C-alpha cells in the first residue's frame, strides 16, 4: 500500500463572526496517499478552501477556530502544532499554489530569488547550490530559458508562466503534499490545458501527493485519481474518478453532473438545474444539508444527518437512500 501522506478525521472548523458562529467545515474525513491526486469539488462556500487552509493553518485564528478533529500530515499533528512548528512544516512537508499567481508573488523581487529564499529556509545548501536548484525547478515546470527567466520580475511573466513559477516554487523543497487551490480558474482554456498537463506530468515524475481544489468537473475528470464532493461543509461522497462520474450515488453529485451540458447535449434538452441555493452555514439545517434541494427528500432527511454508507471499495456517500431499510422509490412516492 502506498504511504499515507495526509489523514484528516472528523474536522470541524468554525469562524466566530459578529453574526454568530459560521460552521464552515462540519466533519470532514479525508486521506491522501503518495503519488495520488485527490480532487475536492464543490460550490463556493462549501468549505473546500477552508479545509485546505486549515491543513496549512493559513487561516487567521481567530476568527477561525478548529473545533474538533485531527489532521495528521506525514507524522505531524497539525491541530496541536504551534506557529513555530508550522513554519518548519510549510514549504517543506506541504506547500500550496493559489488561484491568482500575481498576488502570491513578491512583485519587487526576482522570481529566481524568491525560489532561492524558500530553498535556503528549508534545505542546507550554499547560495550557489540553491541558485542552481532554483533554475532546475524552473526547468522542471517547462519554463524556457530558465537562467534568464529567473532574473526577471513577476510582472514580466505571463499568467500561465507565473502559475508555472508558483508550481516551481511550491515544489522546490520536495514537499510530500501539494495543495492546488483552483490553480487554473484565472487562466484561459488553452493555458489551463498546459497547466493541467504539467500537473499530470509532475505527479508521475516526482510522486508527490496532490490535493486539487476546483469547481470545474472537466478539470477533475482530466487530472484526478480520487474525488471528494463537498456540500455545505461536509464531504457528501468520495470515491475514485470512475465511481464519482459513472457510479455516483449521492443525489447532489448526480444533480451537479446533470446540470452541466456535455458536448453531446442537444439543444432540445433542457438542462436539469438544481433548484434553490446552498444553506446558510450560520444556522445549518438539522438534517441533511441538501434535503431542501433534493428531489428524493424523505422525512428522515429533514430530521437526522445521514451517516456514511459504503457503496463499494473506497467509495462512500452520506445519504439516507443508501440505508438498507430504505424503501424502493415507488413505495416512497418518489417523483425523481
Amino acid at each position: 500500500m502506498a504511504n499515507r501522506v495526509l489523514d484528516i478525521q472528523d474536522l470541524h472548523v468554525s469562524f466566530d463572526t459578529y453574526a454568530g458562529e459560521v460552521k464552515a467545515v462540519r466533519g470532514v474525513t479525508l486521506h491522501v496517499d503518495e503519488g495520488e491526486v485527490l480532487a475536492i469539488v464543490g460550490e463556493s462556500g462549501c468549505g473546500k478552501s477552508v479545509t485546505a487552509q486549515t491543513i496549512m493553518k493559513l487561516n487567521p485564528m481567530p476568527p477561525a477556530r478548529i473545533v474538533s478533529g485531527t489532521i495528521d500530515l506525514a507524522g505531524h499533528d497539525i491541530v496541536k502544532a504551534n506557529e513555530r512548528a508550522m513554519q518548519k512544516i510549510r514549504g517543506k512537508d506541504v506547500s500550496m499554489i493559489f488561484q491568482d499567481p500575481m498576488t502570491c508573488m513578491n512583485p519587487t523581487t526576482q522570481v529566481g530569488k524568491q525560489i532561492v529564499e524558500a530553498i535556503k529556509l528549508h534545505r542546507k545548501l550554499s547560495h550557489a547550490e540553491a541558485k542552481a536548484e532554483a533554475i532546475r525547478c524552473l526547468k522542471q515546470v517547462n519554463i524556457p530559458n530558465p537562467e534568464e527567466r529567473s532574473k526577471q520580475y513577476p510582472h514580466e511573466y505571463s499568467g500561465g508562466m507565473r502559475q508555472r513559477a508558483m508550481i516551481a516554487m511550491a515544489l522546490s523543497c520536495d514537499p510530500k503534499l501539494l495543495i492546488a487551490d483552483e490553480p487554473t480558474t484565472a487562466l484561459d482554456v488553452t493555458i489551463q490545458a498546459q497547466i493541467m498537463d504539467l500537473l499530470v506530468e509532475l505527479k508521475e515524475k516526482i510522486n508527490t501527493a496532490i490535493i486539487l481544489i476546483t469547481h470545474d468537473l472537466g478539470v477533475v475528470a482530466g487530472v484526478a485519481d480520487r474525488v471528494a464532493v463537498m456540500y455545505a461543509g461536509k464531504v457528501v461522497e468520495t470515491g475514485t474518478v470512475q465511481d464519482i462520474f459513472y457510479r455516483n450515488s449521492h443525489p447532489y453529485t448526480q444533480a451537479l453532473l446533470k446540470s452541466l451540458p456535455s458536448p453531446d447535449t442537444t439543444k432540445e434538452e433542457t438542462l436539469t438545474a438544481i433548484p434553490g441555493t446552498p444553506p446558510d452555514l450560520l444556522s445549518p439545517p438539522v438534517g441533511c444539508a441538501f434535503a431542501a434541494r433534493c428531489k428524493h427528500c424523505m422525512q428522515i432527511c429533514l430530521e437526522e444527518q445521514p451517516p456514511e454508507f459504503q457503496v463499494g471499495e473506497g467509495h462512500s456517500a452520506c445519504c439516507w437512500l443508501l440505508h438498507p431499510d430504505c424503501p424502493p422509490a415507488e413505495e416512497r412516492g418518489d417523483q425523481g
Partner: protein
Amino acid sequence: MSQEVLIRAEGICKYFKVSGGRTLHAVEDVTLDIHRGETLGLVGESGCGKSTLGRTMMGIYTPTKGKLIYNGEALDLHSKKDRFRFAKKAQIVFQDPYASLDSRMTVGSIIEEGMVIHDMYDAKGRQKRVEELLDTVGLNREHANRFPHEFSGGQRQRIGIARALAIEPEFIVCDEPISALDVSIQAQVINLLRKLQKEMGLTYLFIAHDLNIVKYISDRIAVMYLGSVVELATSDELYSHTLHPYSKALLSAVPIPDPDKEAQKSRQIISGDVPSPINKPKGCSFCTRCPVACDKCRESVPPLQEVRPGHFVACHLVQPGQV
C-alpha cells in the same frame, strides 16, 4: 429561425489610446450578421476583444471605424438621438451581478429606471410591469422593495435580466452572464435565458469562455482571436468540422466532465501566450502560435471567407474548394 438580419456590424474597428502614444487594437475589422431570433455565441480567450465587440454592437462604445446597421437602417452612433433610440432596442446583461447593480437603489427602482428614461407607462403601470418582470425571471413580487445585497449571485443575475427586459428590447448582449455563478446555479440562469428567448423572440449575442455552454445555447458561434473573427459557423458545424487551427486548439483544450472521454481525447496543446493587442504580429494574428503557419501567414492577413455553406474561416491554409 428566420434569415432576416437584425443587426449587422460592418468592418467594425475599436481602438483605445494607451500610454506612450500607442494604440490598443481591441477589435479589428469585424463584419458580423446577427439574425432575428437567433443566439450568436462569441468565444475566445481573455483579451481577444469579445466584450469590446459586444459593447460596441449595443452602442456603449462608438466604433473607431465601421458602422452598425440595425433592421436595415445605418445607425449614426455619434448622434445622441440615434443612440437613445438604439438603446431602447439593445440591452446588456453583465458578467458580475455584484458590481452591475447600484447597491443604493431598491430592486424595483433598478428595474424601473429604464422605463422612466424611455418614458414608458405611468407610475402605476411601471409598478405593475416591475411585478410582472419579477414573476418572469422567477423572483417574488415582494423583492421589489429590497436592496441588491440581500440577494445571492444567481438571484442578482435574475434581477440584471429583469432590468434588461424592462424596456422590451429586441437584442440582448449577454456578456459572460454565468461566469461568476456557481455550477449548480448556472443551469438555472441558462434555462431562464432560453425560456425568455422562446417566449419573447429575443436575439442574443452570447459572450462566454465556457465552450460547452456556448455550444449548448448558440445557433451559430463566432471564434475570436486577438480582435478578429477567425471562424464562424453553426454550432454543430463548428464542432464537427473545425477548420481554423486556433479553433481546433481551443476546442480540444476544453476539459470534458467525463473521465473516459478525457483519457481518450487527443489534446492539441498550443504553446506560448496570446500576443499583446498593442503590438500585434504582422500577417495572421495567430501565426506566432500556429503549428502549421507558413511564410504567407507571416506576411498577409487572411480574409474571412466562406469555405462551406454558412461556414466562414480566416486562414490562408483553408481555402474554399479545398475542404
